[in-house]
């Protein structure tokens, strides 16, 4: 994925996440604000309900007090004083009194609890209201309370009070009140979006017909059954959200408040419903706006990010391309500079770097060239000085011998001419080696068994490895300690496409170097093995080893660690290996020997390694 794509993606994601975050926070805040407002409204409504409840209770109490002190009830009380009171003429009193005092319920009850007259259920005269006499508190001090009132068409929820009527030794009771129903709910002032429902808890379990709001029975009341049943199990304020339909706006939050009677029995449940429609609509509006803003933002962001990314990435891309060219060897690559920002500074630095690289390379080449020429001059001077000095001495002896006798002169002459010829021959050899290095032949490739090449090269030096005194290959010294050669060949090694003579020459040079590195004898290990697509040749000695600095310069032409070396041996080896698209590496530590490793591809054209030609040092 390109940097530009990444940047565009980053910008887009950032904008989208920002819009989503803002939307989420806004939605959250709105919900919190609505919830807080709903909670306030609900609390206000509950307070209003309780105030209305208390106010109605006071009205009921006041009405009952008036009835109790009225003439009609006093007449009944007087009748009660008789030994055999006849209440039959008063059977309709309660109805008339209830109408005049605007009460839904009114009963006049005899001292023994017998109903004398009932407004809400006239036919119940003669029945007993045992709750009035069984638990007899000071009714005159009791405020209004909730009560389940039995009616011909079923029980109802009532706000009632009791007022005793004392005449002499007897006490009549006047009990009555108002019905808590939709009319009561209608009297509540409800904020928009809120409603109050009343559930009359007439029987265990949920009864849909017992639930009504100010307009009447609630449709689809069964949805509220779980909430009501919870309150029935544990009378406490409980909140719940009811989903009336599949739309998000079709939900309504309900707060259930238990309405309990004098003995804490659950008589009813007030449900304050708050429609979530407004909240959902605002949330939907915010979300839609967020989608629009987000969409526009993402679109604009894409444009801006594309533009910004192009401004940022184009120079970077140019830099990357330039760096790739530099890596490919095109050191004179320059990057166009526009502006003065960090990217421009980076481009300028890049251009500066490439310029300095070229300059340093030129200087290095120049210095290496000078150093090579110096080394070449030193080597030439050294190589040529050795035969020139005997030549000079021999010629001077020959000049001086003209003054001695002819016999001596002839002898000197013979010896001198022999020496001269030998030194001249030596000079020719030196020149020939330089000439050979300058004229490395082109490899004549053929399938070659590496093991055979190594074995043949070793065979060349077999005599010097036996330990018998013999002159060194370089002509120095007469005897040298024995060197033990060990061959560790891989039998199944594949044939490689190579020039056997050039390989023989390279391996011979390395064996010779190894022998030179073991003046006191040692072990020479020749090893071949197969790697993935290549073969390896290892020539290891147990000689004096090399320092890191020596290793670093080992393949430099004309560099040698030997007293009389030309410094061309390893250069030739490297040249041969490079011509076969292989690699050569050296691993050495002082006093622990040196190991050369040559890796040759089985098929040279498939393993082009460039000029690296690979020499590496470990």
């Amino acid at each position, binding site marked *: 994925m390109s940097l530009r794509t990444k940047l565009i993606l980053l910008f887009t994601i950032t904008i989208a996440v920002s819009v989503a975050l803002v939307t989420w926070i806004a939605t959250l805040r709105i919900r919190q604000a609505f919830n807080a407002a709903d909670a306030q409204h609900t609390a206000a409504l509950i307070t209003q309900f309780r105030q209305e409840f208390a106010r109605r209770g006071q009205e009921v109490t006041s009405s009952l007090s008036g009835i109790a002190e009225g003439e009609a009830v006093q007449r009944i009380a007087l009748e009660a004083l008789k030994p055999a009171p006849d209440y039959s003429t008063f059977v309709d009193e309660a109805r008339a009194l209830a109408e005049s005092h605007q009460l839904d319920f009114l009963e006049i009850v005899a001292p023994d609890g017998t109903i004398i007259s009932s407004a809400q259920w*006239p036919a119940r*005269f003669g029945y007993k209201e045992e709750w009035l006499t069984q638990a007899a508190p000071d009714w005159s001090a009791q405020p209004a309370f909730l009560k389940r009132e039995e009616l*011909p068409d079923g029980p109802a929820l009532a706000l009632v009070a009791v007022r005793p009527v004392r005449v002499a030794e007897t006490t009549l009771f006047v009990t009555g009140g108002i019905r808590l129903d939709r009319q009561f709910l209608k009297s509540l002032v409800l904020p928009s979006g809120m409603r109050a429902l009343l559930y009359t808890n007439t029987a265990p379990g949920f009864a849909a017909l017992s639930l009504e709001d100010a307009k009447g029975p609630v449709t689809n009341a069964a949805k509220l059954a779980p909430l009501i049943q919870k309150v029935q199990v544990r009378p406490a304020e409980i909140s719940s959200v009811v989903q009336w339909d599949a739309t998000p706006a079709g939900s309504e939050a309900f707060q259930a408040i238990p309405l309990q009677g004098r003995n804490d029995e659950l008589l009813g449940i007030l449900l304050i419903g708050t429609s979530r429609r407004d909240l959902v609509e605002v949330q939907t509006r915010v979300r839609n706006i967020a989608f629009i803003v987000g969409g526009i933002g993402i679109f604009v962001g894409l444009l801006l990010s594309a533009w910004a990314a192009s401004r940022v990435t184009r120079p970077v891309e140019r830099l990357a391309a330039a760096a790739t060219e530099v890596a490919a060897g095109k050191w004179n690559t320059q990057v166009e500079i526009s502006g003065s920002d960090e990217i421009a500074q980076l481009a300028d630095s890049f251009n500066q770097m490439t310029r300095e690289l070229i300059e340093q390379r030129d200087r290095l080449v120049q210095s290496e060239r000078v150093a090579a020429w110096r080394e070449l001059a030193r080597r030439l001077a050294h190589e040529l000085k050795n035969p020139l000095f005997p030549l000079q001495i021999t010629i001077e002896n020959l000049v001086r011998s003209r003054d001695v006798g002819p016999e001596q002169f002839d002898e000197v002459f013979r010896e001198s001419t022999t020496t001269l010829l030998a030194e001249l021959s030596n000079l020719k050899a030196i020149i020939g080696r330089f000439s050979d290095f300058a004229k490395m032949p082109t490899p004549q490739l053929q399938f070659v068994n590496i093991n055979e090449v190594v074995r043949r090269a070793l065979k060349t030096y077999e005599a010097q490895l036996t330990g018998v005194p013999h002159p060194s290959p370089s002509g120095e010294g007469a005897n040298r300690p024995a060197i033990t050669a060990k061959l560790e060949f891989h039998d199944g090694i594949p044939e490689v496409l190579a020039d056997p003579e050039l390989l023989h020459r390279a391996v011979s040079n390395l064996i010779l170097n190894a022998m030179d590195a073991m003046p006191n004898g040692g072990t020479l290990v020749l090893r071949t093995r197969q790697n993935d697509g290549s073969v390896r040749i290892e020539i290891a000695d147990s000689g004096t080893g090399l320092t890191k600095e020596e290793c670093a310069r080992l393949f430099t032409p004309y560099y040698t660690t030997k007293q009389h070396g030309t410094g061309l041996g390893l250069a030739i080896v490297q040249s041969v290996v490079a011509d076969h698209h292989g690699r050569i590496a050296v691993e050495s530590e002082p006093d622990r020997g040196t190991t050369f490793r040559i890796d040759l591809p089985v098929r040279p054209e498939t393993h082009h390694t460039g000029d690296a030609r690979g020499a590496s040092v470990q």
Partner: protein
Amino acid sequence: MVAHAATRPHYGGTLRVESRAALPSLDPSQSIAPAEIALRDSVLSLIGDTLVALDANARPIPRLATRWQSDNGNKRWQFWIRPGVFLHNDASLTPAHVAQSLAAINPNWKVRANSDYIIFESELPLPELPVELSRPSYTILSRASGQLVGTGPFRIEDFQPARRLVLRANDDYWNGRPYLDAINVTLSVPLRDQALHLQLGQVDLIELAPDQVRRTSQDNRRVATSAPSELIAMVVPNGSSPAEDPRLRQAISLAIDRVAINNTLLQRQGEPTAALLPQWISGYAFLFPSNRDLDRARQLRAEVHSAQAPVTLAYDPADALARTIAERVAVNARDAGIAIQPVPAMTNNGAAAKLVRIPASSANSHAALASIASSLDGAELPRVLTAGTPENLYAAERALLDDFRIIPLAHVPESFALSPRIRNWTAPRYGGLPLHSVWLEAAQEAAK
């Protein structure tokens, strides 16, 4: 009973009467609601005459028939028609008129007219036929030209069902002209309005419900009350699925606290009863126990295993007392685990039961029972007319009550409130409006 012996009877004046009855028809051949029967019977007694009347001891005495005799084991009867009686259309009453009138009321009878008498023939013996013919429903009426024309002390001047009835005195009445010139009856007036109108002096005679009697008396109003003769009962027609099980109906009957209904709702004006005829007529009403037996009621209810749907009990929505009684029945039945739902519907549309008020219409037990039976839909008295002994009457009544399709609750009197100017109120013990003998005090006298 009101009597002003020191005052000389006064002719003239119009009596103003109000009734809650709608009185859809005056023709006794047409069926009307039981609550309408009392007023219709009273009106029939004003516009016409029966062949036979009953004396103070409920024995038959001549009326339009001067004499009668039976033979062939009471299967053949002859009634001699009174001569010199004229219909309101000035036509002379003939046996043919009488035969047509009776045949129209009871098509099952074979009635033939002769020169001056009529002949009844029946396959079954009719020992109580004279008593039967004393019932107001057998008032002799001519239906010539689509109008009812009788021989009574008053003739119909204007009749608008559910609105008004105007009767004018028949100057040529064979038994002497009535004192009143006219009677104006305003129909379909609620009891409360009637009481108000009486207080305002806009009416002379109004009906009183039993629960109004005591209060009206306490208000020093004139109240005329008959003996308890009107039956208040709960009737369960055939095919009433929620109450089809007789054990359930019996349980309802046993659960009802009739004493409380009488003492409180009827203000002790009536008599709690489980019989059709009041004790003062039949003499055996005590044989029908009316006490409440809630345990037995619950036991019977438990025996009815099926889940019981509420038994709807229809009552006259214009009758507040009927509503309260129906509700009381429901409250009592609830104690036995029976659900009864009072519904305000007089037409009994779909209701499982109905609350009815049936006047006795006669002091004679045979005639009264026949009258009550004829007022009940589907009730039949197969043996009543064939054997008029007390034992047979009791058996017939027992047969009517055995399956508890009729659940008597109370007998209540007919009660009226009268203005001070009404004089000579001589109502029979079983009730009715004795307006043929009433006269009105002159305005000056009334003012005193």
